[in-house]
């Protein structure tokens, strides 16, 4: 079965369009959102354990690395959310023309960046108040 066989054209034969990176980004942000979900579960467990465990968890959340990760998870989730809606619209058979798909792709990127900025700003405010 290892004889060289003719291969059907794969990704490399197509001219690059940004919609291609949006497509793979949907998977990457999906995987990142899975890690984010595990972080959410860890946070819920800390909250359920008690005040000391929650204080320790929030101390960890306050470190620069954790903040950077949180911004990354936020963008991942927001992008996956917006692009997921784009996929659901495609599933109804709408918006599949090339020009439409490019336009909705650009719209998703702009929306995701703006929403990320908004959530990060609101998140900073929600984290800033120390009781």
């Amino acid at each position, binding site marked *: 079965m290892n004889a060289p066989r003719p291969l059907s054209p794969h990704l490399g034969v197509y001219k690059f369009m940004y919609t291609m990176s949006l497509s793979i980004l949907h998977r990457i942000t999906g*995987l990142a959102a899975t890690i984010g979900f595990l972080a959410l579960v860890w946070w819920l467990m800390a909250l359920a354990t008690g005040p000391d465990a929650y204080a320790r968890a929030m101390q960890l959340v306050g470190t620069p690395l954790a903040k950077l990760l949180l911004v990354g998870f936020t963008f991942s989730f927001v992008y996956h959310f917006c692009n997921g809606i784009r996929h*659901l619209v495609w599933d109804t058979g709408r918006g599949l023309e090339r020009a439409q798909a490019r336009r909705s792709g650009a719209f998703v990127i702009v929306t995701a960046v703006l929403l990320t900025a908004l959530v990060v700003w609101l998140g900073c405010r929600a984290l800033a108040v120390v009781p």
Partner: protein
Amino acid sequence: MSLRTPLGRVLGKGAAGDGVGHWWLQRVTAVALIPLTAWFAISLLGKQLQSYDAMRGWLGQPWVAVFAALLVVTIAWHSKLGVQVVVEDYVHGKGSKTALLLLSLFVHIAAAAAALFAILRMALV
């Protein structure tokens, strides 16, 4: 003339042998997650996250606990289906593929169990 057996046609499972169940459930959980995640994110952003009492008081409310439970179960389900597609597409060794799929399944079930336990504890204790 179709070469498919009548039984195969009725079962509707196609060449891969498990039909459209995976594809459909991924869409069903995706649709459910639109309101659930939006509600959770918006609510969370309006809370004093550093305050244990405020967070505990919020998640301890009956309806909040119910929807938080629905949220974590639906996320775990949707995430399990998504990771499965990625593993099936990019991991080609039979052993490593099976091992990764099992690992992903166990991690997702454990995560859902832990999250449900945490939410129930906050709502009931």
